[in-house]
C-alpha cells in the first residue's frame, strides 16, 4: 500500500541521498520501517493540511516527499532532547542547508536523535554504528511502550497491547497515529485520541497549534469516536497519510461496530455535542425554573446571571452566547438555552469550544429531535403542539432576517435606513417583502425536513456520557441553583442524577434538623406541662369541678402562679382575692389554655382590680377575716410554689440549654457534611 510505497521511495531516496554528500545511511530493517512510518506521518500531515507544507516543497523534485516543519518539530520535541541538541541535529542532517526535511534528512535526523538519546555525541560518525531506535515520549498511555524496547524490534510490528484490532493494517495505521501524537503541552486526561490531541485537550480558547489544526480538522469525525473508553489509545485511527480515506472508513466501521449498539446518523459524528435525554430533561427543568413558559424566552440579563454561576470566564460565556443565540435577539428560547447549557457543560468538562454551532445543537435540530419531551403537565402538550407552529415562525423570523440582511447588502437599495434598530429595519422592509415571506415557509419547511433526522431514542450509552462520566457526572450543572430554587426543581434533580445522594443528604439533614426542632419544642411543652401539674399549676382536667373548697387555695395559687409565670407578679397579690371567684367559676377550662386564660383573667381582673383595688381589697379583706389566715397560709403556699416553680424553671432552662446544644451540634454536623459535599463536588464539577 501507500505506506510500503512510501517506504520504498524513502529507501530509494535514502540511497539516492548518498550522492548529496551525506554519509551512507545504513538502516536496519526495523529502523527503516519505523523511520518510514514517521516520515510518512509527517509528510502526510503536511500534505493533509491546506497549504501548511513548506513553500519550498514546490521546489522539491516530484516523487520525493517532504515532511512539514511543524510535525517534525513536534516529533523532535517529543524525543525529549534539549533544544540545542535538536538544533544541532537539524543542522547536521542537512535540513537547514537544504531548506526542507527530505527523506534523507529526516532519517539522518532520526538516527541522530537515537544517538543523542543513547548518549552518543551528535556527530555524523555516530550514526554509522548500530543504534537503538529513537524514543519519542508520547502520551502516558502508550507511547513509551512503542519504541522503548529496541531489542524487540523486528521487521514487522512492535507488539503493542492493543484492544480490538481486526486488521494488521489498522495496527500499522495506529502506530503512525501514535507517533503523531504531538506533545502539546497539556496532556489529555482521557484516552489519548491519537491524531487530534490538540483539538480535544484542556486547552484555552487560544489555539496555539494552528499548523496542526488544519490537519486535525480533517480528522473531525473520527476523533470523536476516539473518546470511547472501550476503544483505547488506538481509537480513531484517522489522520494517517496516504490511506486516509480507507482508514477513515474502516475506523468508522470499527467504531460503529465496537462501540455503539445503535448508530445514529453518521453525518453527525460529533458526539460531544449531542444532547442526551437526561441532559435534555435537566436543561428543560432549568429553563422552567427561570421561565415557566417553555415556549417563551429567557431574557438576556436573566440568562447572564444564570450562566455566570457556572464560573466560566466572561469571554467564554460571551462566545457561548454568540454561538447559541442563533437569531441574535438577546434572548434564549428553549432550544437555544439547551444548546448554550450544553456548551457550558462541555466546556466545564474540558472540551474546547467549537468554531461554529455544531449541527446537533442548532435550534431546528433540537426542536425536531426532541419534539415531545417527557414533561409532566398539560403545558407540555400545548408546547408540543405549538412547537411546529413556533418552529415555523421562528424559522420564518430567521429567514426573514437573513433575507433582510441580504436585501440590505444589495447596492440597489438607494433609500437609506432611517431607523437605527435592526428590528425597525426589518419591519419596514418586511412590509415590502411580504411576497418573499410566503416563499420562506416552503424553504423553511424543506430545511426543517432536511435537518430533522429521525433519532432513535434508545442510545443508552453514548460516548459523551461515558466520556463525561469518566470525568464527572455528565449533566452536573455548573451552577448549583437547586439550593436556591424551589423544592420542585431540587426534587427533579434528585430524580435525574444518581450522584445526587449528596443533595438528598442535604435535604435529609435539613428535615432532620426540622424534626429535631419539633422534638425540642414538643419536649419543652411536655416538660412545662408536667412540671406545671406537679407543682399544682395545672390541675388534672377532670378533677377540677368536684373540688370547690380545697381547690380554692389551689386555684388561687394557680391563678397567682400563672400570672407570675407570665408577668405582673406584683399585681397578683392584689388581684388574687378578686380572682378567687373568677377562676373558681371557670374550672372546667381546657388545661392547655390555662396559661392564657389566667393571663386574660389577670389582665381583665387587673383592670378592674387596679381601678378598684383599694376598695376591693378592703372590701374583700373585711368580709373575710378567715381569709386572712388563709392568706397567710396561702402566702406560704405561694412561696413554696414560687420556689418550686423557680426550680422547675431552672430545670427547664437547663433542658433548654441542653437541647440548644444538641441543636448546635446537629447544625455543626450538617455544616461538616456540607463541607464534605463541597469538597467532593469540585472534584466532579470543575
Amino acid at each position, binding site marked *: 500500500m501507500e505506506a510500503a510505497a512510501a517506504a520504498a521511495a524513502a529507501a530509494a531516496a535514502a540511497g539516492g541521498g548518498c550522492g548529496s554528500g551525506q554519509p551512507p545511511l545504513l538502516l536496519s530493517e526495523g529502523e527503516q520501517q519505523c523511520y518510514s512510518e514517521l516520515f510518512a506521518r509527517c509528510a502526510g500531515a503536511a500534505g493533509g493540511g491546506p497549504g501548511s507544507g513548506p513553500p519550498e516543497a514546490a521546489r522539491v523534485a516530484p516523487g520525493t516527499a517532504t515532511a512539514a516543519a511543524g510535525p517534525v518539530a513536534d516529533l523532535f520535541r517529543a524525543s525529549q532532547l534539549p533544544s540545542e541538541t535538536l538544533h544541532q541535529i537539524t543542522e547536521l542532517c542537512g535540513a537547514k542547508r537544504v531548506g526542507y526535511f527530505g527523506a534523507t534528512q529526516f532519517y539522518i535526523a532520526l538516527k541522530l536523535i537515537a544517538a543523542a538519546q543513547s548518549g552518543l555525541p551528535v556527530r555524523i560518525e555516530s550514526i554509522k554504528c548500530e543504534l537503538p531506535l529513537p524514543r519519542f515520549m508520547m502520551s502516558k498511555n502508550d507511547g513509551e511502550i512503542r519504541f522503548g524496547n529496541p531489542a524487540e524490534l523486528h521487521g514487522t510490528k512492535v507488539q503493542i497491547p492493543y484492544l480490538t484490532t481486526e486488521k494488521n493494517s489498522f495496527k500499522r495505521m495506529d502506530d503512525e497515529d501514535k507517533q503523531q501524537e504531538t506533545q502539546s503541552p497539556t496532556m489529555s486526561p482521557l484516552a489519548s485520541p491519537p491524531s487530534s490531541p490538540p483539538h480535544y485537550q484542556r486547552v484555552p480558547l487560544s489555539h496555539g497549534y494552528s499548523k496542526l489544526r488544519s490537519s486535525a480538522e480533517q480528522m473531525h469525525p473520527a476523533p470523536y469516536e476516539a473518546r470511547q473508553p472501550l476503544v483505547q489509545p488506538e481509537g480513531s485511527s484517522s489522520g494517517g497519510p496516504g490511506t486516509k480515506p480507507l482508514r477513515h472508513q474502516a475506523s468508522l466501521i470499527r467504531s460503529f461496530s465496537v462501540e455503539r449498539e445503535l448508530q445514529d446518523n453518521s453525518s453527525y459524528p460529533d458526539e460531544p455535542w449531542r444532547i442526551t435525554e437526561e441532559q435534555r430533561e435537566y436543561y428543560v427543568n432549568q429553563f422552567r425554573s427561570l421561565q415557566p413558559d417553555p415556549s417563551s424566552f429567557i431574557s438576556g440579563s436573566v440568562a*447572564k446571571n444564570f450562566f455566570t454561576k457556572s464560573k466560566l470566564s466572561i469571554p467564554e460565556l460571551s462566545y457561548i452566547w*454568540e454561538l447559541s443565540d442563533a437569531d441574535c435577539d438577546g434572548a434564549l428560547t428553549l432550544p437555544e438555552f439547551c444548546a448554550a447549557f450544553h456548551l457550558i457543560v462541555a466546556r466545564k468538562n474540558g472540551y474546547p469550544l467549537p468554531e461554529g454551532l455544531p449541527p446537533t445543537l442548532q435550534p431546528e435540530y433540537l426542536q425536531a429531535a426532541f419534539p415531545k419531551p417527557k414533561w409532566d403537565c398539560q403545558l407540555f402538550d400545548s408546547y408540543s403542539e405549538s412547537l411546529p407552529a413556533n418552529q415555523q415562525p421562528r424559522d420564518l423570523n430567521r429567514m426573514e432576517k437573513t433575507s433582510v440582511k441580504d436585501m*440590505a*447588502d444589495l447596492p440597489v437599495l438607494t433609500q437609506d435606513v*432611517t431607523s437605527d434598530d435592526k428590528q425597525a429595519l426589518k419591519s419596514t422592509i418586511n412590509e415590502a417583502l411580504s411576497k418573499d415571506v410566503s416563499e420562506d415557509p416552503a424553504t423553511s419547511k424543506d430545511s426543517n425536513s432536511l435537518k430533522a433526522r429521525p433519532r432513535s431514542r434508545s442510545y443508552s450509552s453514548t460516548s459523551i456520557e461515558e466520556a463525561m462520566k469518566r470525568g464527572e457526572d455528565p449533566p452536573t450543572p455548573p451552577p448549583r441553583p437547586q439550593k436556591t430554587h424551589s423544592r420542585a426543581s431540587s426534587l427533579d434533580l434528585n430524580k435525574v442524577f444518581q450522584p445526587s445522594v449528596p443533595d438528598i443528604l442535604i435535604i435529609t439533614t435539613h428535615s432532620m434538623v426540622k424534626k429535631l426542632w419539633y422534638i425540642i419544642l414538643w419536649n419543652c411543652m411536655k416538660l412545662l406541662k408536667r412540671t406545671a401539674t406537679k407543682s399544682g399549676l395545672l390541675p388534672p382536667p377532670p378533677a377540677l369541678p368536684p373540688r370547690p373548697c380545697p381547690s380554692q387555695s389551689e386555684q388561687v395559687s394557680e391563678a397567682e402562679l400563672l400570672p407570675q409565670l407570665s408577668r405582673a407578679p406584683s399585681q397578683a397579690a392584689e388581684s388574687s382575692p378578686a380572682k378567687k371567684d373568677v377562676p373558681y367559676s371557670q374550672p372546667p377550662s381546657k388545661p392547655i389554655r390555662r396559661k392564657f386564660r389566667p393571663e386574660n383573667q389577670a389582665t381583665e381582673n387587673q383592670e378592674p382590680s387596679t381601678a378598684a383595688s383599694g376598695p376591693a381589697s378592703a372590701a374583700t379583706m373585711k368580709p373575710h377575716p378567715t381569709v386572712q389566715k388563709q392568706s397567710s397560709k396561702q402566702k406560704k403556699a405561694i412561696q413554696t410554689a414560687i420556689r418550686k416553680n423557680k426550680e422547675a424553671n431552672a430545670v427547664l432552662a437547663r433542658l433548654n440549654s441542653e437541647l440548644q446544644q444538641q441543636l448546635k451540634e446537629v447544625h455543626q454536623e450538617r455544616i461538616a457534611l456540607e463541607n464534605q459535599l463541597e469538597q467532593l463536588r469540585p472534584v466532579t464539577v470543575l
Partner: protein
Amino acid sequence: MAVCIAVIAKENYPLYIRSSPTENELKFHYMVHTSLDVVDEKISAMGKALVDQRELYLGLLYPTEDYKVYGYVTNSKVKFVMVVDSSNTALRDNEIRSMFRKLHNSYTDVMCNPFYNPGDRIQSSRAFDNMVTSMMIQVC
C-alpha cells in the same frame, strides 16, 4: 476593501479599531482620531437642521492623498469610521453604505450579547471580527 475600520464610542474612545497590517497602524489611528472632529462637525450641523431625519451615513469625511475616510453615526452616538484606499476607485458610495450597514448589524448583534457591557472594547465577538475581516483588504 477598507484599510482600517474603527468603532468609536460616544465618549470618543475607540471600542474597536483594526487596520490592515501592511501599513503603519499608528497612522491610521491618527487619521481616525482626526476624523472625529469632522464627525462631530457634521453631527452638529445636521442636528440643528433636521433633528428627526438625521442620517446615519455621513459620507466622505475628508479625503487625503492616499486615503478617503468615511463616517457613520448611530443613534446612540457610536461612530463607525472607515478608511479606504484612494486607489480603489471602484468603490461606490452604495458599497460603502452597505459596508456600514453590515457593520451596524454586527454591532447590534454584539450588543445583544448580555455578557457584553456597553462601553467595553469589542474583543470577544468572533462574529464581529469575522465580519470586519471580510471587509478589510486582503493582504497579498
